[in-house]
């Protein structure tokens, strides 16, 4: 009889609802109930498939299709299950982040007016040793992915060592960069470090003016086109982070066509968001670039036209664009809307830990002084984000996808001074109201 086992590329982690399984090569995350999690744990050792009629048998076709179960060969080392987790979360908040967003440096070679990174003293940035220590802690908690950004992360000399160490410890490293420093040598080093995906940030159309911020964008646009040619020849998965502003929106179709011509398959659409502590300049930038309801509806039309041509993703602040879908189907597909402080968090260059990059003032503490697990479990200042009753009672009350979307917390706070004040521009909310 054939023996099967869990793929070596799968990480397991117990959770309050059962457990999670992450396929590090395919980037697929499963949430399963307690029985299914027990079955996955038994598959750490080669075993015959369950007989037809046995409850686990129903899971096998899907697990095999997704690459989580593979035919066993003798004497292979087995993946490690996370059987040693002490705090399981509560189901709404996970036992550990799925992804830690690491702003590895605040230094940058661009000065985009809408940048969300607060000022940091670069002399106080986490050292290589401190970062390795943090990665050890994340590995112990079975964090699945590390999303490294900045600032511009390629300005950090030890970046490749940090990325490689994360991969060595079983965490999938991904990188977001403005692309200005990418060349074939850098790309080879990223490959060797085990980076899964590189996202290039592209912040809009080239400006008409020279010498101002738009000049940097023009420079970046040229640089991205050059970097893309090399990147697309590499083993790395390549995506574009496209910040869609009202001025870009009329040209979005052209931009997507251009990206497709260059060979890009993955585009992540980002919505402009207000920084946590807006300065006069960043507030003016946000007011000029925020997407209104009409913009969001237009964006949905463009996405609809391009779906199937490119693989389009949206950030969590745009989950309301999926409002036509059944809530149960959104849940099945792992759509959670704003996951700040519940499924993700951001670690800043100085070690402070916040729920996400746009709630940078809600620090749970500093990982230099307190263990990361303790900061995550305690979640000081994040309590309201972790309250499962808050979404259905706030500004999104009555919305049929409140639990799958819930609006963007940072937008709600900017609008209403309340983290659960609702999203004034949400197209689904207005549709629901008018219906």
């Amino acid at each position, binding site marked *: 009889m054939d023996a099967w086992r869990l793929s070596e590329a799968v990480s397991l982690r117990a959770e309050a*609802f*059962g457990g999670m399984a992450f396929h590090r090569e*395919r*980037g*697929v*995350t*499963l*949430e*399963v*109930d307690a*029985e*299914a999690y027990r*079955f996955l744990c038994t598959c750490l050792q080669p075993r015959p498939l369950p007989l037809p*009629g046995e*409850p*686990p048998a*129903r*899971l096998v*076709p*899907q697990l095999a*299709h*997704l690459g989580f179960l593979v035919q066993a060969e003798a004497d292979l080392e087995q993946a490690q299950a996370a059987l040693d987790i002490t705090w399981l979360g509560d189901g709404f908040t996970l036992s550990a982040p799925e992804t830690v967003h690491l702003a590895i440096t605040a230094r940058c070679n661009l000065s985009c007016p809408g940048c969300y990174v607060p000022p940091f003293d670069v002399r106080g940035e986490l050292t290589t040793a401190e970062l390795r220590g943090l990665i050890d802690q994340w590995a112990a908690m079975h964090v699945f*992915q590390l999303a490294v950004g900045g600032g511009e992360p390629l300005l950090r000399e030890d970046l490749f060592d940090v990325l490689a160490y994360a991969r060595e410890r079983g965490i999938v490293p991904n990188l977001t960069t403005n692309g200005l420093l990418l060349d074939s040598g850098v790309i080879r080093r990223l490959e060797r470090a085990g980076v*899964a*995906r590189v996202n290039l940030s592209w912040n809009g159309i080239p400006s008409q003016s020279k010498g101002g911020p738009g000049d940097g964008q023009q420079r970046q646009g040229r640089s991205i086109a050059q970097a893309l040619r090399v990147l697309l020849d590499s083993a790395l*998965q390549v995506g574009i982070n496209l910040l869609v502003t009202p001025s870009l929106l009329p040209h979005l179709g052209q931009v997507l066509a251009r990206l497709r011509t260059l060979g890009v*398959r*993955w585009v992540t659409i980002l919505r402009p968001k207000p920084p946590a502590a807006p300065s006069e300049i960043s507030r003016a930038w946000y007011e000029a670039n925020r997407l209104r309801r009409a913009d969001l509806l237009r964006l*949905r039309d463009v*996405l*609809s036209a391009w*779906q*199937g041509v490119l*693989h*389009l993703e*949206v950030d969590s602040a745009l989950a309301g*664009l*999926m409002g*036509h*879908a*059944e*809530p*149960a*189907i959104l*849940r*099945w*597909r*792992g759509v959670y809307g704003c996951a700040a402080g519940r499924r993700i968090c951001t670690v800043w260059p100085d070690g402070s830990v916040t729920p996400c990059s746009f709630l940078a003032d809600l620090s749970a503490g500093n990982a230099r002084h307190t263990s990361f697990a303790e900061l995550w479990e305690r979640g000081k200042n994040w309590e309201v984000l972790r309250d499962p009753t808050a979404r259905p009672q706030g500004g999104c009350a009555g919305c049929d996808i409140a639990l799958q979307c819930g609006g963007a917390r940072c937008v709600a706070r900017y609008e209403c001074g309340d983290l659960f004040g609702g999203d004034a521009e949400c197209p689904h909310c207005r549709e629901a109201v008018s219906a």
Partner: protein
Amino acid sequence: MRGNKSGDQEVTIRILSIQHNFEADHSSSSYEFFALDKLTPEQRAGVQDLTGESPRRHLRFHYMGDWRDIPSDWPDKLLTLGYDIMVSESYDWWAVHLSLPHDPELMGRLQQYECDSDGNGFRLEVSGDRMVLYFGMQLDYGAAYDAFGEDPFEGLADLFEGVRSELFAGDLSVVWAMCETYGGYEDEETEPEPVEPLSPSAGALLNVMENY
């Protein structure tokens, strides 16, 4: 069985969600409409006006990805324009809408069997002079092909043509089977009346829901 009745000790074993991060997710949503009788000229004109499609007894709409879906009023309208059954699939979630002439007596008998478990279950709504019965079920990957043949849309439509006849004959065992699978009751007072033995269609459906 996936039933969630309080007090039961049934073992569930489920994948709760699947999230694709760096693999393309080629999933889609499909809607197929079946008319058991030929459409009248008025119905044909209505279908043409609504959808722009040439009216046929079997209409199919397919949407890729997240951003486009069937206009929200089409299912109800098409189910009053001569189509009797709509079978839809989206990310392994299968649903059947069955359109019947509005019959207050039958509706009253059916209402006790309405049930919902995470989007699976049975419900009914009135739409004009029709009542539309909704049957939702999440099936495991590929299971619909095992259970309903090479074309699960056709297979499910055939099964529910049988269900329609059974309901007209007063046999409510198919909705009882939905309750058996997806109902959740706190006490006996709210528990709907059992229907036994199960009709052939109800038995087939229950077998699929239990095993997939």
